[in-house]
């Protein structure tokens, strides 16, 4: 257990994991993304975060209205070729949260304009093959996705207003066998073929792939009769140039801080200091993997969290090293001093880490956006500290202390006379 190679095995393992966290790995379907492919928050990659709400609506929007509004936003973003987006509905507050990146290669992209356009009232139209308008959004009073009663295939059922039914009846009689195209703004969303004249107040669109596809289409059609437009009263825009500069700066700050802390540990604590540096590398590696494997969003404060936990992480090594030194000065032999050091220091490290964990968890639960990332990296840092600062450090120190050449008390900062 306390054999000499343990130190080298730990170092090799740390180095391997460190490389893995930096460069990633791909084995068939199994992929671990490297540090270069982190999922960054908008404060780093640039982008827009906007909360849309109905403009001048005297009541809370219904769930169906919110779904329709989401369909508008999604369709418009498709039209703008914004694929890497995130649109979520906050039903409790009647709001829609939208996040999308602002790519650095889009020099003439106008985010303010995009936010306005996405929220505008949707113009829904049913057009004949010549482009003539048959129905407008308000002519459809409701659309819903269902399973057909006859064939149990997914269908979209349209309920038409009185006027709409009249117009639709005339058009479908004229256009049997031809296509009717449904547009939102200028985006084609569906073009069903008229199978027979539709004279009643309801119509069915059949031949849809799945119930989800039907729901999607139904939401888009509903958007035509949405009684409000959307306005983004809370929004945050960050340009990609601003963010990418900041990323480089923070990474540099991280390297410098890591270097300085390691230097300090080496000079002040010598052999246990060296062990601390390796443990610190392991800790940061764990944090990087905890970010890249689940693709957890990393923001600038998140990077600050990693750097901060570098400083906090050595606490475990400092307590232990001080204790070992003290025990040796009190006349204990090296092995007993090391064991006593770790045993007596454990409760202190544990306490300190628990209180930081409390703070980090509260930050994760209460923090919005960028704070969430800070809380997360801090939490991962503290948890990794138990693994690296305590367990791995103990294995490494005990292993090293088996070498005769490394048993000198001064390597542990103790007085020479100790033995």
């Amino acid at each position, binding site marked *: 257990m306390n054999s000499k190679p343990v130190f080298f095995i730990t170092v090799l393992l740390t180095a391997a994991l460190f490389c893995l966290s930096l460069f990633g790995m791909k084995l068939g379907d199994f992929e671990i993304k490297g540090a270069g492919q982190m999922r960054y928050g908008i404060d780093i990659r640039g982008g827009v975060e906007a909360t849309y709400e109905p403009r001048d609506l005297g009541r809370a929007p219904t769930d169906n209205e919110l779904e329709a509004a989401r369909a508008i936003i999604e369709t418009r973003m498709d039209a703008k070729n914004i694929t890497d987006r995130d649109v979520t509905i906050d039903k409790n507050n009647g709001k829609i949260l939208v996040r999308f990146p602002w790519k650095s290669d889009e020099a003439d992209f*106008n*985010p*303010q*304009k995009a*936010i*306005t356009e996405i*929220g505008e009232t949707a113009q829904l139209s049913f057009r004949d093959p010549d482009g003539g308008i048959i129905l407008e959004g308000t002519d459809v009073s409701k659309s819903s996705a269902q399973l057909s009663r006859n064939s149990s295939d997914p269908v979209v059922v349209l309920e038409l207003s009185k006027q709409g039914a009249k117009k639709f009846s005339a058009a479908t009689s004229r256009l049997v066998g031809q296509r009717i195209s449904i547009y939102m703004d200028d985006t084609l969303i569906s073009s069903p073929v008229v199978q027979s004249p539709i004279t009643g107040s309801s119509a069915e669109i059949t031949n849809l792939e799945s119930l989800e596809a039907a729901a999607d289409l139904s939401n888009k059609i509903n958007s035509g009769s949405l009684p409000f437009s959307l306005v983004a*009263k*809370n*929004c*945050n*825009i*960050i*340009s990609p140039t*601003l963010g990418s*500069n*900041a990323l480089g*700066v*923070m990474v540099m*700050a991280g390297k*410098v*801080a*890591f270097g*300085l*802390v390691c230097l*300090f*540990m080496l000079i*002040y604590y010598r052999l246990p200091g060296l062990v601390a540096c390796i443990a610190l590398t392991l800790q940061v590696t764990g944090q990087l993997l905890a970010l890249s494997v689940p693709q957890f969003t990393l923001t*600038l*404060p998140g990077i*600050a969290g990693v*750097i*901060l936990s*570098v*400083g*906090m992480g*050595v*606490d475990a090594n*400092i*307590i232990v090293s*001080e204790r070992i030194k*003290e025990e040796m000065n009190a006349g204990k032999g090296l092995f007993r001093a090391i064991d006593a050091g770790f045993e007596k220091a454990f409760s*202190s490290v544990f*306490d*300190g*880490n628990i*209180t*930081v*964990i*409390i*703070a980090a968890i*509260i*930050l994760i639960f*209460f*923090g*919005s956006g*960028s*704070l969430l990332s*800070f*809380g997360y990296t801090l939490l991962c840092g503290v948890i990794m500290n138990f693994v690296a600062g305590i367990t791995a450090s103990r294995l490494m120190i005990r292993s090293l202390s088996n070498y005769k050449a490394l048993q000198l008390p001064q390597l542990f900062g103790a007085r020479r006379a100790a033995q």
Partner: protein
Amino acid sequence: MIRFYKHRFIYFTISLCLILFGLVAAFINGIQLDIQFKGGTILKYTYTDTIHAEQAEEIVEQAVGQNSNCLLQSNLAKDEKMLAVSLASNEALTSREQEAVTAALTQAYPSANLALSESLTVEPFIGKQFFTKGMIAIALSFLLILVYVGVRFKNIGGLSAGAMAIVALFHDAFIVTAVFIIFKIPINDSFIAAILTIIGFSINDTIVIYDRVRENERLQGRKTPPEELVDLSVNQSMMRSVNTNLAVFLSITVVYIFAQIYDIASIRSFALPMMFGTLSGCYSTICIAGPLWAMWQKHKQAGAKIAKA
């Protein structure tokens, strides 16, 4: 050995002065809330050439009919100037109004290469919600950490040690707040992060010292006067306290320096208070919590003697 107990009143005075200084600054500077918490709009543009702030304010007012405050900033590291337009009206600017501001400024300064670099719009109502949420987060973490300290201190010094740890905790939280006030950093979620981190981290020192007190009490017996016990324990664990805080201070200072040079506001406003919080955490543990505990214990012993007699 440093006689912390003997010099205790010097330390208490220093702390009280700092707290007083913070309070005076709060009266003079006021406590500024960031747009994130009070609502409003801020638009930041990069530009070259020259722009006059007052003229820009007029242009913005004409475009959206609201008073604005324009600030020109330059950056140490980048050869780039920044125009910050802030509007603190009750109603947040819509994206359409923001477009109007951008368009009006671009038209007025065609050769300035104006480009939007950052914008933040928050409805006052939402800002208030964020603020309340943040305060709840601070209150909740205080509470949870106190409960944890209470449970832990049951074995160490009981109520007295727990109470002193709490004094140290408030001390540190106050110093962090004072830094925000003195340096006129608007209160936003960086403040929440800084306070939570500092109280989570600095209590750890205090626990270590009381742990040591308990250990020495066991070794030396109850005969040793509390002030000697405290001085001995503080001196024994001081290097650890100082070095740990030094490591944290070092890393957060590096972050601050980089954020300052390259003008990363979101990080700067959080790193600076953290730096002071770290120093305060170290100081309050060594110079305040220990001696205060000894005073309490002596007071209790004196009381017991009088009761016996």
